């Protein structure tokens, strides 16, 4: 039996309801805020009449662009709320009501009368939009466009070709805890309990916006109810709460209403992806083009880097990977679990399935034939890459061999049954972090680092890494995380938390042991403290490409009467470095895969062309998976030893689970029905004959 891994250190608090989230700190005198979203798709605020709102019993204040504290510009204009009369998109905040009670704040917000000078708006993404351009960089700093070899020539002469366009709609993170902040100013110091993925980023941004030294700002994120990217950097709630607290002189609580999130916390942008694969008769790729068209807002350029996986996955001597983007009058897109990779791999891995059909090669075998030891785009060898092993192990566990490749070859009564496969991929990121390790005279250890546990098990894995580096039992290590007053560290994002934090923690712990050793193994009264910073340890341009890989297998049923698609089995096998806590790692994998089920079958909102908002904004109309949607989900991994990564030998695991799921399911739907759905989600009408 392998080690099941420890249970979460904060687990008891979470199951007894004592874990406190951002909206659950209530300093004396706390006032409650409720935002007023713009009700036009674009234009200008002409007037705000707060009279009726201020007449509500319990009213404290109404903040508008005319009276709100002034902010300094930082690198994210979505945070410049209530600074001018411009309405760049529907749902942009135009006022904030503050009251003694949450009930009064809500009533006040409804009573604020805003008049607008509407302007013409343009919110619909089309592949031929005249204002499309190629950005210099897409998200994560990747080049907007890359060419290698001669794609056009190689594609034209390829004996087997696939040319397919895949579309996806806007997706919304919807963590269960809506964005919330409780903020208070005291003697020029700001304390904010904020639901975020990294308190340092929030602290630094608030310092810039309010022109306050960051040493005078504390941001606490002890427990965070999920993020999936949409709490990666500060969002408007923390700015508004801090503004309102400064304006009213009282602590202010702001929890964003669920239905407002889609407009102000980011979304995964809709994408049109054209894939062209040229291959030999054996299915080996000679030409690959992945061309992405997407939108951003007029407030902030964010380009979902969906073509990126095609730069990394398979042999492709001749390649073109491009992004085109148009700035529309829409809410600003942002990170959502595996930005780029999740939708990009949906397109690439469906195209691979189409190539397998066209070449008459088994889809698992096709991927094996196109495996590469080096990252095609950079030419760098992978530090470790066990995609083929994942495919083989997954095929074995899933029973892939018995599969009849012909579409519509399996029926059970009125159900068609199909199976599909796709690869998973997510790159490894490390970011500089600092940590502190302390030992008491009695041999108790305390590790301090501003890691953030958004549900990943960060607290627990930090303790595990520390215990291992120190060479002591886990129960001798106490961990403090989740506050900007702790040693600064990278945020919980890009699947880079554990690697980045662990590196710093490992370094601090080893330094502490060296200090103890230098004293002949004794600890003086008052204990010893070691600090570490990895800024100089993390190579800016490592000689190896580093990434996690995996393979996912799906079995679906399609009801021939209703078109309802349900996932019956979903199996993932991953190669993601050394798994540090099996218990929580499994949860990360299946959690990502579950979100992938949503992406495949349920999720996707509609940009309302007339009103300029996402029509499905609440959890009744935007369907995330329920218990009943998730059956037979399994995750396994291959032990991978890779000394080139970091001191722990770990890779990130928070995002790879969602990468490939949608393709595996869509490919299974094709196998079940013969219908190739190239537009997610796979709703009943798309397969109903």
């Amino acid at each position, binding site marked *: 039996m392998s080690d099941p891994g420890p*249970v*979460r250190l*904060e*687990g*008891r*608090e*979470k*199951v*007894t*309801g*004592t*874990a*406190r*989230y951002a*909206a*659950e700190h*209530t300093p004396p005198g706390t006032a409650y805020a409720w935002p007023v979203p713009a009700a036009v798709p674009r234009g200008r605020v002409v007037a705000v009449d707060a009279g009726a709102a201020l007449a509500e019993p319990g009213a404290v204040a109404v903040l508008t662009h005319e009276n709100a504290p002034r902010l300094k510009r930082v690198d994210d204009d979505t945070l410049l709320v209530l600074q001018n009369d411009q309405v760049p998109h529907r749902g942009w905040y135009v006022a904030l009501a503050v009251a003694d*009670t949450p*009930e*009064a704040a809500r*009533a006040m917000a409804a009573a604020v009368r805003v008049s607008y000078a509407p302007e013409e708006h343009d919110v619909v993404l089309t592949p031929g939009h005249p204002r499309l351009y190629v950005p210099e960089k897409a998200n994560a700093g990747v080049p907007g466009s890359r060419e290698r070899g001669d794609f056009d020539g190689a594609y034209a002469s390829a004996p087997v070709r696939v040319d397919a366009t895949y579309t996806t709609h806007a997706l919304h*993170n*919807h*963590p*269960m*805890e*809506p964005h919330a902040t409780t903020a208070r100013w005291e003697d020029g110091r700001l304390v904010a309990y904020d639901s975020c993925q990294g308190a340092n980023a929030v602290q630094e941004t608030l310092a810039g916006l309010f022109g306050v030294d960051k040493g005078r700002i504390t941001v606490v994120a002890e*427990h*965070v*109810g*999920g993020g*999936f990217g949409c709490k990666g950097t500060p969002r408007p709630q923390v700015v508004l709460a801090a503004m309102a607290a400064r304006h009213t002189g009282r602590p202010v609580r702001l*929890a964003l*209403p*669920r239905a407002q999130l889609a407009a102000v916390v980011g979304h995964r942008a809709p994408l049109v992806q054209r894939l062209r694969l040229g291959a030999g008769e054996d299915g080996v790729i000679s030409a690959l083009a992945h061309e992405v068209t997407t939108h951003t807002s007029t407030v902030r350029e964010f380009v979902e880097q969906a073509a990126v996986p095609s730069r990394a996955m398979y042999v492709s001597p001749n390649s073109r990977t491009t992004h085109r983007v148009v700035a529309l009058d829409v809410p600003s897109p942002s990170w959502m679990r595996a930005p780029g990779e999740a939708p990009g791999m949906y397109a690439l891995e469906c195209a691979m399935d189409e190539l397998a059909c066209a070449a008459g090669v088994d889809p698992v075998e096709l991927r094996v034939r196109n495996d590469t030891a080096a990252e095609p785009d950079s030419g760098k060898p992978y530090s470790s890459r066990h995609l083929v092993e994942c495919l083989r192990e997954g095929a074995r566990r899933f029973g892939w061999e018995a599969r009849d490749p012909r579409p519509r070859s399996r029926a059970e009564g009125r159900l068609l049954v199909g199976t599909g496969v796709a690869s998973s991929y997510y790159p490894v990121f490390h970011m500089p972090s600092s940590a502190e390790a302390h030992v008491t005279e009695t041999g108790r250890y305390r590790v301090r680092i501003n890691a953030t546990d*958004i*549900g*990943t*098990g960060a607290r627990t894995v930090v303790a595990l890494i520390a215990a291992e580096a120190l060479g002591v039992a886990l129960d001798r290590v106490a961990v403090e995380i989740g506050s900007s007053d702790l040693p600064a560290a990278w945020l919980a994002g890009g699947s880079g938390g554990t690697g980045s934090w662990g590196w710093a923690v490992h370094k601090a712990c080893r330094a502490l042991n060296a200090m103890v050793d230098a004293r002949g193994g004794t600890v003086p009264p008052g204990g010893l403290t070691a600090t570490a910073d990895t800024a100089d340890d993390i190579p800016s341009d490592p000689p190896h490409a580093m990434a996690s890989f995996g393979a996912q297998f799906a079995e679906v049923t399609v009801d021939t009467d209703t078109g309802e698609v349900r996932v019956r089995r979903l199996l993932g096998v991953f190669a993601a470095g050394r798994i540090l806590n099996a*218990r*929580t790692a*499994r*949860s*990360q994998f*299946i*959690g*990502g*895969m*579950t979100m992938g089920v949503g992406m495949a079958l349920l999720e996707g909102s509609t940009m309302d062309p007339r009103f300029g908002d996402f029509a499905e904004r*609440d*959890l*009744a109309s935007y369907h*995330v*998976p*329920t*218990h*009943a949607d*998730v*059956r037979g*989900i399994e995750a396994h991994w291959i032990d991978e030893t890779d000394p080139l990564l970091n001191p722990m030998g770990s890779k990130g695991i928070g995002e790879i689970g969602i990468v490939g799921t949608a393709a595996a399911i869509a490919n299974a739907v094709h196998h079940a029905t013969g219908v190739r759905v190239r537009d997610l989600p796979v709703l009943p009408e798309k397969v109903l004959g």
Partner: protein
Amino acid sequence: MEPPQTSSAVTLRVNGVRHRLRDLDHRTTVLDALREHLGLTGAKKGCDHAQCGACTVLVDGRRANSCLLLAVAYDGAEVTTVEGLADGDALHPLQEAFLVRDGFQCGYCTPGQLCSAVGMIAEAGGGAPSVVTPPGTAAAGAPVPLSPEEIRERMSGNLCRCGAYGNIVAAVEDVTR
């Protein structure tokens, strides 16, 4: 004319303790009464519209979305929240099972999942069918066996965005098997 009275005294018995809220706004939900007036923040506000289940508590023994219950209408009710499930330091078996099975990640839906599971187990034990209970299989009143399919359907009013569903079902099975 007197302005209409828009607040009232409300008494709730929460986890066995009687609380009298002397002047509660009629608009206040049971959820907000718990969270903002009684300091019991275990029940969560995920959507405020009964679309996510994070606010699930037991009211007079039955699970309900506390975000849609006006407290004034539940004057005198017996409410059990996640804070009331454990017996002192001894966790409820479901709480233990959630820990061992890792039936949560961020923890925000967890109090609702736990209260919902407690209520759901009692409902099935009392013979209440679900939409996946084959018609005619269990005599009315006889307990409905909680297969994984039954658990999934009956727990579907509790969303978990972290995707801990499989582990939650395993935890419930640990307790009901």
